[in-house]
């Protein structure tokens, strides 16, 4: 097996294991990362909702916010985990694809200038 294939196998294993990043925080009753609370949580913690934060927090509605989508987390752990894995696969493919294209565009130009 080529190294590249081994590495991609590793990425695949990580994608399948990724729901651990969802289950472990839930099991250990850990909340959001520090500084990544929802406006409701801030209101509760700080006693008020900063007005600029309230205005900007809805700046962008991500299509798969929190690596999930409407309805699935409520259907139980299997669906929540499934959405997480599908999000991981989509993110991996997009990220790797875009970096590959950027890399090829950048590096191809170098060869034109005749370094080889």
């Amino acid at each position: 097996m080529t190294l590249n294939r081994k590495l991609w196998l590793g990425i695949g294993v990580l994608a399948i294991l990724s729901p651990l990043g969802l289950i472990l925080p839930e099991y250990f009753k850990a909340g959001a990362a520090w500084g990544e609370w929802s406006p409701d949580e801030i209101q509760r913690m700080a006693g008020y909702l900063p007005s600029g934060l309230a205005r900007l927090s809805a700046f962008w509605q991500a299509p798969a916010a929190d690596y999930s989508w409407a309805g699935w987390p409520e259907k139980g752990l299997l669906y929540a985990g499934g959405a997480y894995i599908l999000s991981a696969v989509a993110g991996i493919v997009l990220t790797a694809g875009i970096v590959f294209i950027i890399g090829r565009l950048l590096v191809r130009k170098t060869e034109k200038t005749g370094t080889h």
Partner: protein
Amino acid sequence: MHIPDGYLSPAACGVFGLAMVPVWATASRVVKKTLKVRQVPFLAVGAAFSFVIMMFNLPIPGGTTGHATGGVLIAILLGPWAACIAVTVALVIQALLFGDGGITAIGANCFNMAFVLPFTGFYIYKLVGAGSAAGSLRQVIAAGIGAYAGLCAAAACAGIEFGLQPLLFHTANGQALYCPYGLNIAVPVMAGEHLLIFGWFEAVVTALVVKYLIHTQSGLWIEGHTGGSA
């Protein structure tokens, strides 16, 4: 460490967005010069690794969560400028599609995780590993220490960015307009939780992958990657 929309003022977002423009330009220029065609697929795998490892949220029981980034690993393997591009793309996808990190905060998040993190980690790795033989235990440990330092430095930066907001942007009666927690809380918490917990995870992950890859000769490594032969 993905700062969401609304925690940083538009002015702060603008400053970090502008600061990243020359960084991205330099990254493109350096990568164009130093990266080889056969290394491009490895940079893509590195970016994928960074994306997925950031989904592994580690809990502090009853408290918050954090994660590794893989940014120092990419920097050690393919250079910090290449790591900057790979992590930037991962962060943009996370913000756009998954709402992990704000769109307005993308400059700040890239400054922390795609610039401060890989560069701090890379140079600490070079410093600690200087003179070590390729594949030596010291090189592997240097990779771990670099990863730990890189993540903690990025977390401290995020803490400073959070903490400056209430100081600079508040109403006449002192209510914060954006992040409500000042430097006295944000910096110790962000730096502390990464120094105590999450930094170790980044260190172990980075050291293990470096140990596994250190003997491969598939053009994965940038030239002069070993501390001593550079």
